[in-house]
């Protein structure tokens, strides 16, 4: 047995003259240079090289297609069509990359609500300092309903950041005590994206807070 093959011990390759007809599953990278028909289920990457032809329903983490794929692909991470890639079928993946030269016909679904939520949570987990700063600066946070902090965390990360604005403001308006005075600049921070809206709404509570809010503007704009 060729010893040199041991080098590829954790990599599966389907050579150019090989035809596999059936179900293929596994937990390692798979490179297809030949032909696979049926079904592919992997917990890692699928690489379809130029000579590769896949006629199968594919479920993987990451797919890189330089050859031909006919069938549906569901990826938990990413689907990439390189310049030589040709595909007919549907793609469901949080990230889809199609470069110039690739051809594709089918439907694309970029991440349903659940995967979007997961990615947002992952982003939050990856930036504990940023979110904790927001939390730390809001001394008012303990008084808020539990849903409000979550909105505040999610808002700087997503393009939906404009939406949560009204809610913190309404919660602010309710208590006119000094506590609200501390909270208002914090809640105003995500709304700094457009000054016009901010200038209209929070003016009644306390003008001085605006000064603090404008300081935070820098942070918010950086993320935008």
């Amino acid at each position, binding site marked *: 047995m060729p010893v040199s093959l041991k080098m590829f011990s954790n990599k599966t390759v389907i050579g150019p003259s090989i035809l596999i007809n059936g*179900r293929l599953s596994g937990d390692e990278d798979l490179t297809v240079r030949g032909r696979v028909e049926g079904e592919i289920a992997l917990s890692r990457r699928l690489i379809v090289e130029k000579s590769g032809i896949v006629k199968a329903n594919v479920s993987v983490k990451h797919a890189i297609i330089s050859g031909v794929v006919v069938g549906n692909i569901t990826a938990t991470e990413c689907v990439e069509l390189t310049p030589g890639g040709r595909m007919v079928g549907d793609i469901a993946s949080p990230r889809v990359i199609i470069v110039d030269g690739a051809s594709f016909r089918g439907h694309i679904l970029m991440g349903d609500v659940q995967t979007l939520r997961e990615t947002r949570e992952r982003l939050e987990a990856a930036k504990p300092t940023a979110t904790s700063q927001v939390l730390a600066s809001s001394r008012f946070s303990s008084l808020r309903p539990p849903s409000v902090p979550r909105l505040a965390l999610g808002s700087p990360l997503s393009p939906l950041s404009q939406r949560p604005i009204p809610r913190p403001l309404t919660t602010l308006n309710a208590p006119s005590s000094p506590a609200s005075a501390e909270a208002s600049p914090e809640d105003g921070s995500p709304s700094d994206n457009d000054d016009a809206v901010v200038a209209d709404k929070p003016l009644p509570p306390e003008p001085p807070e605006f000064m603090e809010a404008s300081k935070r503007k820098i942070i918010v704009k950086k993320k935008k």
Partner: protein
Amino acid sequence: MANTIIGSSIVIDGEISGDEDLVIQGTVKGRISLKESLYVESSGIVEADIDTQNVEIAGRVTGNIVASDKVELKADCRVIGDIKSPRILIADGAAFKGNVDMDIKD
């Protein structure tokens, strides 16, 4: 060099055919027909009928084997099934159950 490798965590249920060497470190069920050599490594498990030119087995194979050239059962392999080939080598330590047919013509 063989350029098709079925890695150790891969499971294939179906048919594999082709004109090149195939190395199996994972699991294959169904049918294998090649015009070249098949290597079943020690981690490989094959539950399939095999039709190739050359077979080297160090893992487990259940199924009938037809080889046009040679079948080699290495030490520590486990093979259950009939073998038909002009040349058959069984190493010390190999476990085998089945018929052997070297296709001797009278």
